[in-house]
């Protein structure tokens, strides 16, 4: 099996989860209402846990310990899509990103549940329930706010427009798409993107929101190669601040 290809896949997935998990956790204590604050924080925690499971797989393939990988790299060494590093903005943007990202994440893990790389298939099957709740949460909010009143609809539509090209960047192809496909590890970003479009469209329609016209699509690429917006570096600094005080500390 092509270990380099698998590592590339694991890194981008783990980094997406770690960074969006951290971003979403920035809402902890500041959420719009207590119940939602708890739910959103709990899901952020799930995401960090999921990233840890993937970093653990990387460790088994010869990479360093999960904490070292998560907290000692600089921004250029991260493989996350630019989408997940964008600041939270208002809750409308955070929810829209949660919806667009989490549906993609759930579909990706569904595809991987039958992967020929068994350790990853095992993780995918284990977290199935968590992902189901995350998508249930996202869908419920999107449909509710998309059709609640003029202001909420307008804000969700703006959030969708702002998020769209970044969301498309989630499906940036890597150098090993064919290896992963041929070896039955992962069916590839193109297939995932297609499935994602088919899945989000009915929900957005139900929410009376409109996907930007296809002529305007310009995926924000580069994240997978370490090209990031100016927002990632301060995030990484803040996220690893405590760890860097004493990397050898026992937690």
């Amino acid at each position, binding site marked *: 099996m092509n270990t380099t290809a698998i590592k590339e896949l694991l890194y981008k997935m783990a980094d997406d989860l770690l960074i969006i998990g951290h971003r979403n956790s920035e809402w902890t204590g500041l959420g719009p*209402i207590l*119940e939602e604050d*708890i*739910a959103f924080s709990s899901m952020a925690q799930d995401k960090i846990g999921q990233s840890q499971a993937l970093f653990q797989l990387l460790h088994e393939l010869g990479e360093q310990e999960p904490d070292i990988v998560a907290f000692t790299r600089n921004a250029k060494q991260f493989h996350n899509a630019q989408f997940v590093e964008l600041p939270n903005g208002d809750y409308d943007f955070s929810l829209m990103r949660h919806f667009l990202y989490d549906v993609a994440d759930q579909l990706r893990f569904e595809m991987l549940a039958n992967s020929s790389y068994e350790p990853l298939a095992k993780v995918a099957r284990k977290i199935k329930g968590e992902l189901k709740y995350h998508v249930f949460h996202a869908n419920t*909010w999107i449909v*509710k706010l998309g059709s609640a009143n003029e202001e909420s609809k307008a804000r969700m539509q703006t959030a969708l427009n702002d998020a769209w090209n970044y969301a498309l960047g989630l499906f940036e192809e890597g150098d090993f798409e064919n290896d992963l496909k041929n070896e039955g590890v992962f069916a590839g970003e193109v297939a995932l993107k297609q499935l994602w479009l088919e899945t989000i469209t009915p929900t957005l329609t139900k929410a009376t929101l409109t996907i930007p016209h296809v002529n305007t699509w310009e995926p924000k690429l580069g994240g997978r190669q370490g090209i990031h917006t100016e927002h990632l570096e301060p995030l990484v600094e*803040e996220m690893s601040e405590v760890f860097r005080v004493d990397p050898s500390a026992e937690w």
Partner: protein
Amino acid sequence: MIKSLDPRLTRENIEENNLIAPLTPMDNWETYEVFHQKKRGDQHMHVGIVHAPNPEMALLFGKEQYGRRSITANIWVVKTANVFASEYDDADMFETTPEKQYREAGGYKVMDKINKYKKANKA
């Protein structure tokens, strides 16, 4: 501007004399009563309330508030406004006169009898 140890708050550039707007009726959602079932076939037990704008969201929140820390098979949510309750002023109707205490379940020491029977049959 408020400077906090919490970098998230500092970033918000909040004025020192920031006036917190009073709540309006729409700021608080209705409450739903949450009932939690441990495993299939068990009774659903009342565990508390959540605030939510509709039943779906009450389920969303109920799951995280009350289903996350223990084994859960199922959750029910019921709009608090739909619960028909007795009045505390009428609590005296639940009182029993001393001569009717035979009606109270506590009067039947069933467990004692069962244990006595088990013990007798074991010997």
